[in-house]
């Protein structure tokens, strides 16, 4: 039974509670309302990116370009809205950010499907291309005079929760709904599991996979806007390494990099876990370097536990809940 708890679905949730409990005792000022809000703000961007990354990983892909693409979205959109007080311009610029993200995602998906190149390679190339494009776009300059309205949005709270975090919650909720309740979500899981069987059932799996990359692109575009809202700047060097944190959240959340297994709830908890860990260690005064080491180890433990769980499941031949969401959904209703 203990094994069940440690290794099962609830494992990540339990780990999160234990970790938070530890920091409540060990880290001064961890358990304050203000710090809770800090954590929410800190995990916003990673949560948003991880939502999109979940789709990509579920179809068996990976997107290494999200950090650079985010910078590209930010500079294009930031240039457009800078110095303007008009709401129309602001909304237009936000839409442009999302659009740029979606286009980058489409290119990632299309190239890897059309020429059968692993998405690892395609998005690695895109990581460089997008970063270069962002630098070129602003001549490596940082954009400062972003609209005040945007900055306001980045600082206000609604019902005690930072507005930007509401956006992250909303996106995670939509992601959960799409994955567990829609035909498209079902096809995402099925394609990640056995693409050929899905194709031979009359579905264009290429389109499904490209759509997954576009969804990742959409979240990149949104994350770029949230970034500008919070920090009030747009810079071509922002977002470096963000892809790795997003992937880490998804993997800690129980997804398989082979595709077909994972869930939005897991991803969300994974992002929370990473955020709590970083925040708590900071408050404890752990140095940057040590924090990195610990974070790396946590990711490793998550993956090893996951592999162990799979092996254990195979051995016991337990009905393996491969997809956490569709299953209860099927059993319910």
């Amino acid at each position, binding site marked *: 039974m203990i094994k069940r708890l440690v290794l099962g679905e609830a494992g990540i949730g339990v780990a999160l509670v234990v970790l938070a409990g530890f920091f409540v005792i060990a880290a001064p000022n961890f358990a304050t309302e203000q710090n809770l809000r800090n954590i929410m703000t800190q995990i916003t961007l990673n949560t948003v990116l991880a939502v999109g990354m979940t789709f990509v990983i579920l179809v068996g892909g990976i997107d290494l370009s999200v950090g650079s693409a985010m910078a590209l979205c930010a500079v294009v959109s930031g240039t457009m809205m800078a110095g303007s007080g008009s709401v129309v311009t602001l909304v237009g610029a936000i839409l442009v950010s999302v659009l740029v993200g979606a286009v980058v995602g489409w290119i990632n998906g299309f190239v890897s499907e059309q020429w059968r190149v692993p998405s690892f390679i395609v998005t690695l190339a895109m990581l460089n291309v997008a970063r270069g494009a962002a630098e070129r776009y602003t001549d490596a300059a940082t954009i400062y005079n972003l609209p005040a309205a945007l900055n306001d949005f980045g600082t206000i709270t609604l019902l005690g929760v930072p507005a930007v975090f509401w956006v992250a919650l909303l996106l995670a909720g939509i992601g959960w709904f799409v994955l567990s*309740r*829609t*035909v*498209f*979500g*079902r*096809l995402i*899981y*099925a394609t990640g*599991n*056995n693409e*050929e*069987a*899905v*194709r*031979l*059932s*009359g*579905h*264009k799996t290429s389109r499904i996979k490209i759509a997954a990359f576009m969804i990742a692109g959409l979240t990149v575009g949104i994350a770029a806007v949230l970034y500008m809202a919070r920090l009030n700047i747009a810079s071509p060097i922002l977002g470096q390494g963000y892809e790795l944190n997003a992937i880490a959240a998804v993997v800690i959340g129980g997804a398989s990099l082979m595709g*077909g*297994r994972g869930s939005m709830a897991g991803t969300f908890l994974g992002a929370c876990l990473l955020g709590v860990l970083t925040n708590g260690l900071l408050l404890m005064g752990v140095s940057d370097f040590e924090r990195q080491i610990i974070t790396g180890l946590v990711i490793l433990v998550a993956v090893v536990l996951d592999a162990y769980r799979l092996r254990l499941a195979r051995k016991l*031949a*337990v*009905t*393996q809940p*491969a*997809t956490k969401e*569709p*299953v209860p*959904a*099927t*059993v*319910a*209703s």
Partner: protein
Amino acid sequence: MMTVTGLVKRFPGVVALDGVDLDIRAGEIHALVGENGAGKSTLVKALAGIHAPDAGTMTFDGVPYTPAGAADGLAAGISVVHQELALLPYLTVAENLFLRGLPRTAGVVDRKRLRADAARLLAEVGLDVAPDTPVERLGIAQMQLVEIAKAISTDCKLLIMDEPTATLTSREAGRLFGILRGLRERGVAIVYISHHLQEVLELADRVTVLRNGRSIETREMAGVTAPDLVRLMVGRDLAQEYPVKPPTEPGEVAIAVRGLKVAGFEGPLSFSVRRGEVVGLAGLVGSGRTEAMRAIFGADPALSGNIELYGEKVRIRHPKDAVRHGISLLTEDRKSQGLVLDLPISANVTLAKLRGLLLRFGQERSLSEDLGRRLHLRSAGVGQHVRTLSGGNQQKVVLAKWLNAGSDILIVDEPTRGIDVGAKYEIHELLLGLAAQGKALIVVSSDLPELMGVCDRILVFSRGKIAGEVARPDFDAEHILTLAYSGYLKNGETQ
């Protein structure tokens, strides 16, 4: 030499083995029969060391046998052909055959010897492919032969075969029987599982019947008849082996294929099927039937040729086009092409008909349960993951998927692969029922009696060409086999 007593294996929600006694002697062929989900494969996996039993004992060669994994089984001298094929797709046939011990010279793999050894084994099982062919390019029957060759390549004391002939035609099966008899002479004990009772009658010395995870009875084969076996397996008599097709007046031409050419096969193929007709495709392994059907369905590109549906030319470039035009293809390999193993039964059943925006769980559930009942699906509920179903029950899920798609033109490739005698009858009846509703059916099967049982006409493929066509009144196994071989003879005289 292998004695099993009171073996129990439980899975969550299912008792797969519920007290099995089995005693296998050296130098005998011991058949294991039972309905889908009776526990045959689970028993095999326990013997092989893959599943640890929850209770019961096994004794091998007089000593207690408690394998901790498949490696222990192999080390003890137990060689297994599992029901689900498990070759490495990107390695060559030769590499797959000798994965356990590649021939080496001074530490380096000796390619030449590897090829030669492989060629010898392949010749023995009658598989005509180059040892260097990557396994992913083989059809399912060819993969099955590779598995068989692999199993007999090791010196073993106990050889277990779980439905080795499910996809083989009589030619390859006959050769396999020869090999098995040879091994029996040498004192090897053989456990043989099959749903083809004729084979069991022909080959086995003794038979053990499993029902609901229990061993019902072990008998000497002498004097046992097919109806005896059926009664033991199913617990009742089966009136006849094949349902009788009500005579129907075939309607308009539903699908006409003209001049179809497929890569790697001679062709061109031309034929048509009318509404209400059941047309069988007979032929040897590798005669191009599967490839032709895949090209029609848009699964693989065709080199040339065109397809007319109800007199109108259509272009089918992707399975999606085919499904939209009301064509279904049940593929021969359920594991790699038919099923999403880690999704529940219900999700698999609806896969070919998923449209729209939202999933309808209630509907999905009720129609899966309904189809499951009609196909005698044995499961712990439609939420059970397909991976954990028995082989025959997985096949029923693929069938359910295409029945649910409701197409007017249904192509089924080995539809009853791995399905037990009782359920087979129901499935044939279901297929004939569809024909009676005016649907056009194409049945590809390695089981000639099955084709002769349910079809109106049989097209005989030989080396990628249609060597002849036989209508029901003239059905004659020998004639059909002659046609099937004709393309392989020097100057194809029989046409």
